């Protein structure tokens, strides 16, 4: 024991530098810089994808500004404070999902919003993207790692309840992301490999069951079109055919900014939301996509460093889950637009148009910053 204690105090876990200004206001300079780079790229692409609509740019930029503000506010919270409130926030989030479920079914259609006119309007599902990993990290960090069967079982329940509620809205994309963020916490907490292999083996019968009993017609349609896009050229197949043509025709260096024919002649649907990377691929080519992925990788690398340097188990688990989930966003979106994965309606972080996802993502990065900048100090001698 005493040997381990010594190591804790003598290695890089403990900071011996004076705090910089950014650190005092709990901001991580590297993350902030990379986020701003991504936002800038996003605005350039969006200007082209949105048909040179300045109004769209202003809206997106102000959403980003709002997101930054939320991020800075979140970064001020002590991670320990977050941990102590996570269970309650989780319960509130689930309650809101139930409320949306009830309202939605009364209104005879899909409703994802809580709307108090003039006060607030938001999707509870977005909250769960943060609360689910936070609650799991809090729960698992209270016990020894790796988790025992009982802990895994309770964690599974904590994931499944919001997953089912969100999938019922129906919003399979968000539901899957919430599921993934929770599973990552379990993975990082040392879920045994035989469990992981077993779960993957169990996916097949579960998938068959979902197909037969749970999935909506339009979701089935999406999977079918993914397997054979040409089967439905009037509907979702059109998107994949056109987005592949857009990306492919970009070549190595692209056609140049604002010169993409596919996106500007209205061939590409949803070109400024989920399919925005097709515009980037057409106008900036393989090089442009490579650069963008590189920036994403740098951002993720920094976030993983923060994960490794976190001092508490809670901090490590939460930071790691947020980072890996962020990567999954990028991977699923690029994969689906390029025809590798089915269309599940996941936006490309910081590039796709849409305020809600921006604010959620940035508050996630706010948590990362909080974890990094609230570490315990030893005064410089």
């Amino acid at each position, binding site marked *: 024991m005493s040997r381990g204690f010594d190591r804790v105090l003598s290695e890089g876990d403990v900071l011996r530098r004076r705090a910089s200004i950014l650190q005092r206001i709990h901001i991580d300079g590297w993350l902030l810089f990379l986020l701003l780079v991504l936002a800038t790229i996003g605005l350039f692409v969006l200007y082209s994808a949105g048909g040179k609509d300045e109004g769209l740019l202003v809206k997106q930029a102000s959403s980003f500004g709002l997101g930054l503000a939320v991020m800075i506010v979140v970064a001020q919270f002590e991670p320990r404070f977050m941990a102590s409130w996570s269970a309650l926030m989780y319960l509130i989030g689930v309650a809101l999902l139930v409320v949306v479920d009830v309202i939605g079914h009364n209104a005879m259609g899909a409703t994802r919003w809580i709307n108090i006119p003039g006060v607030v309007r938001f999707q509870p599902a977005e909250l769960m993207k943060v609360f689910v990993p936070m609650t799991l990290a809090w729960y698992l960090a209270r016990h020894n790692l790796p988790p025992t069967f009982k802990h895994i079982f309770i964690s599974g329940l904590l994931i499944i309840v919001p997953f089912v509620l969100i999938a019922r809205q129906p919003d399979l994309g968000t539901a899957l992301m919430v599921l993934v963020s929770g599973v990552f916490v379990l993975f990082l907490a040392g879920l045994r490999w035989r469990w992981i292999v077993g779960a993957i083996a169990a996916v097949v019968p579960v998938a068959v069951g979902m197909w037969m009993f749970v999935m909506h017609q339009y979701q089935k349609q999406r999977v079918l079109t993914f397997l054979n896009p040409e089967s439905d*050229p*009037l509907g979702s197949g059109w998107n994949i055919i056109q987005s592949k043509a857009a990306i492919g025709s970009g070549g190595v260096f692209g056609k140049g900014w604002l010169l993409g024919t596919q996106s500007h002649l209205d061939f590409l649907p949803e070109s400024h939301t989920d399919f925005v990377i097709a515009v980037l691929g057409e106008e900036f*080519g393989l090089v442009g996509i490579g650069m963008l992925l590189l920036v994403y990788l740098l951002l993720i690398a920094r976030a993983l460093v923060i994960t490794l340097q976190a001092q508490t188990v809670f901090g490590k688990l939460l930071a790691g889950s947020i980072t890996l989930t962020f990567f999954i966003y990028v991977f699923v979106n690029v994969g689906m637009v390029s025809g590798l994965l089915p269309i599940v309606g996941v936006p490309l972080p910081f590039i796709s148009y849409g305020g809600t996802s921006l604010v959620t993502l940035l508050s996630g990065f706010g948590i990362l910053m909080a974890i990094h900048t609230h570490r315990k100090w030893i005064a410089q001698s």
Partner: protein
Amino acid sequence: MPPPIRLKDHERDTRLIRRRVLFAGVILIFLTMLLMLRMYYLQVVQFEHHSTLAENNRIHVQSLPPTRGMIYDRNGVVIADNRASFSLTLTRERAGDWEQVLDSIIEVLELDSDSRELFEKRIRQGRRPFEPVPVMFELSEEQIARIAINQFRLPGVEVAASLVRYYPQKEHFAHSAGYVGRINEKELEKLDPVNYSGTHHIGKTGIERFYEDQLHGQVGYEEVETNARGRVLRVLNRVESVPGLDIYLTLDSRLQEAAELALDGRRGAIVALDPNNGEILAMVSQPSFDPNPFVTGISFKAYGLLRDSLDQPLFNRVLRGLYPPGSTIKPMMAVAGLDAEVITPNSRVFDPGYYQLPNHKHRYRNWNRYGDGWIELDLAIARSNDTYFYDLAHKLGIDRMHDYMTRFGFGRRVALDMFEETAGLMPSKDWKRNRYRQPWYPGETLILGIGQGYMQTTPLQLAHATALMASKGKWHSPHLARTIGGMPPVVDTEESEDVVLRNSVSWTAAQQGMENVLHGARGTARKVGEASQYRIAGKSGTVQVVAIKQGERYDRDKVQERHRDHALFIAYAPAENPAIAVAVLVENGESGSAVAAPVAKQVLDGWLLDNEGVLKAQYQTAAQRAQAEVKP
């Protein structure tokens, strides 16, 4: 020995998480490489392929809308038809400066700026590239000619033939079959965008709305190659659309017509149905309206006239009209009283012309203020004696009354496939506490016994309850669709529960009373019964539209026309073997037995008599049949 307590080992946890993070990092780099490989494949290996595809993006997909299913009556008379109609379409990509083209259209057809605004709105609605958007419907021959002459000024403009809904029966089936109209933005959000990609109309009310999915069909598409100017060169691939299913209704257009004639232009409603299976044979709500203008878009002025008319032609009285049932409720009350054993067929009540609750001053009047003396059930129904039913209601009590009347379908939706049916109201103690925060008063039970007070029913519910009387409680949900695509409609039988009595003799007693309404010596509608070739069981009802004070009497001269009493009559026939049940409502008709009963008789005749006015053979009793054979 207790198991050893495991201490929290922070060091061990940290190492575990570090291993996992590094593993995830490796996977993450591997997946990113996979994405780059995919992009390399698309952008470098397949570059030529995609480049040509994008360069000559000339392959377009056009949807082929399905033909909407037809609607027929039970004998094959067309109720909803599809008629060829010409519309003007504009393809934005081919028009060049489409706003200028729009100006030219306005100029050529000499239209006003309102139309231009409408056209512009239609063009801006969500659509796929190179899709012709219809901007104007129902072109006249002259307009088609003008467009043809000026074609050179109108790039991207075409006259397209399409099938548009037409209702040859006009106002006769507007309230049952309903109509289609242009898809509005709210509906657009909920529709399957693929299946409706070529469709411009959707069912708005009635059968058209209820069976929209079955009537619509499945969209088809064709892939066409166009030249640089957008003209179609050849069709590469074609998948035909699947037309919607035809629906045969249970309605009989001859009976419908007979029923409308019987109402003779008065406001009101008639429902006739077959008590053996719940098929609606006629469904009249007068006045009605011609649904055809709604299909292509009714003008604001014409719509305003219909909407603001005092006679409310757009209002479906059969499904949504709420009326107190009045004395027509008495046969069902009698069944309830017999089954609950608070009365017997022979128990007697003395009627001095009014009824008083013990220890109360208020007198509940009989319609005959001189009183009928000692009276038993049979005569009470035939004479429509109020005092007897006040007494019955008092003995039965509100709870049991609510229970029985709900089983007869009051206060709940009874139809299987009708859009926007109202449940009506069957009051109860709980209902009153929730609605008015007041307890239930005994006096309210009494007036409920003669179908007045809070109770509200639709003509459909009355007809259905009459059918239950005729079938001795066998529940058949009223429905309009007989076959859909040649198959009987799928029926959800959960809601339908037969009315089962402890002793089925109770049915016979109440039915006997209903027969005596028309054929008894003192029946209220004996004049109608006397002229009938077959035996009818029925019950009249006259309900107040405005309240009359204690001690005053109804004086028709003092009351405005629209405040006069509503006339009701329910009946089924032939009494021995019921083949049709009918409910008639004549708004402000004043007398159930004098006004509504003859209307009901005409409807029954329309179904039971043949063209020469002779009772059809299948409806004759054995005795009548024997007599008919002797005659010739």
